[in-house]
């Protein structure tokens, strides 16, 4: 299984033609400079993990596939309501908040906080992080 996963990762890297290290650096930077983010992951719209911080690999992979299903359903719902595509998806319970933000047509940023009072902060921080990753992928800035 691991062998197949490695092969897929190599393939994915060539498909996207971007440096995963830059994304990892951006996630780590965002986490270091914003206490509010406990974990973060960049996933593809079809459920693959690109990079994550502070998540066990198996958990991160599950979050990748579940996150993509949720964003896809959210898109279907907003389109049904003639609202276009879904930009952010927020899950909240008594133990924390999960935010999913579309980075571009292929990637989604997922962040999580255990601070239940930090909704505005995590949404704002996640948007900045998504903007930075988008800029890196578009080669408009250097990380």
């Amino acid at each position, binding site marked *: 299984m691991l062998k197949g996963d490695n092969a*897929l990762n190599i*393939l*994915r890297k060539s*498909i*996207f033609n971007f440096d995963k290290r830059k994304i990892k650096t951006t996630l780590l930077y965002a986490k270091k400079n914003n206490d509010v983010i406990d974990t973060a992951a960049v996933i*593809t*719209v*079809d*459920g*693959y993990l690109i990079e994550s911080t502070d998540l066990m690999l198996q958990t991160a*992979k*599950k979050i*990748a*596939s*579940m996150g*993509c*299903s*949720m964003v*896809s*359903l959210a*898109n*279907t719902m907003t389109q*049904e309501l003639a609202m276009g595509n879904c930009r952010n998806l927020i899950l909240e319970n008594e133990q924390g908040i999960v935010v999913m933000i579309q980075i571009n*047509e*292929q990637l989604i940023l997922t962040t999580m906080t255990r601070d239940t009072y930090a909704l505005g902060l995590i949404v704002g921080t996640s948007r900045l992080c998504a903007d930075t990753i988008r800029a890196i992928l578009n080669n408009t800035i250097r990380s």
Partner: protein
Amino acid sequence: MNPLKIVFTGPVGSGKTSAVETISEVPVVQTEVVPTDTLKNNKSLTTTAMDYGELTIDTNQTLALYGTPGQTRFAYMWDILSKDALGIILLVSNKRRKPIDDLCFYINHFKYQIESSTAAFGVTHLDSFENPQYEMEKYYAFFDKNRYSFPLFPVDTRQRYHVKVLIESLLSMLEIGD
């Protein structure tokens, strides 16, 4: 009256979305995205959460039709969607490398649902639907060997009649069970 629910499942590219699209009387709710892996060489879109359609089977009875994603990384959706389902329609593509292994895998995963309700099976992507006997033999043999007494048909999921036969055979199985 609550809608009854059946679930179309099976490996990626076996025609689940196509089956729901073909038979549904309402616009199908879809959650398809452009694949980022090698699948994009074969398919332009892939389901990530579910397909949903409806079919009226009686004057007052609506059948809710759910299609699952095919990839095993979405297996959690299989369990969510198949909960309380009336039955499972398992599609397997004859074009896959090991379709019998696919059958075994999905039968094993849906064992509880199949035992507690019932199932019907469709083989898709046959070379000829006019004379499918030769290609179907290995599937009939597999069913005989395992003593499965479920309906098994060659299916072109783009043909409304084919999908209807699958659904009707599933409903017949339920009547036999009653």
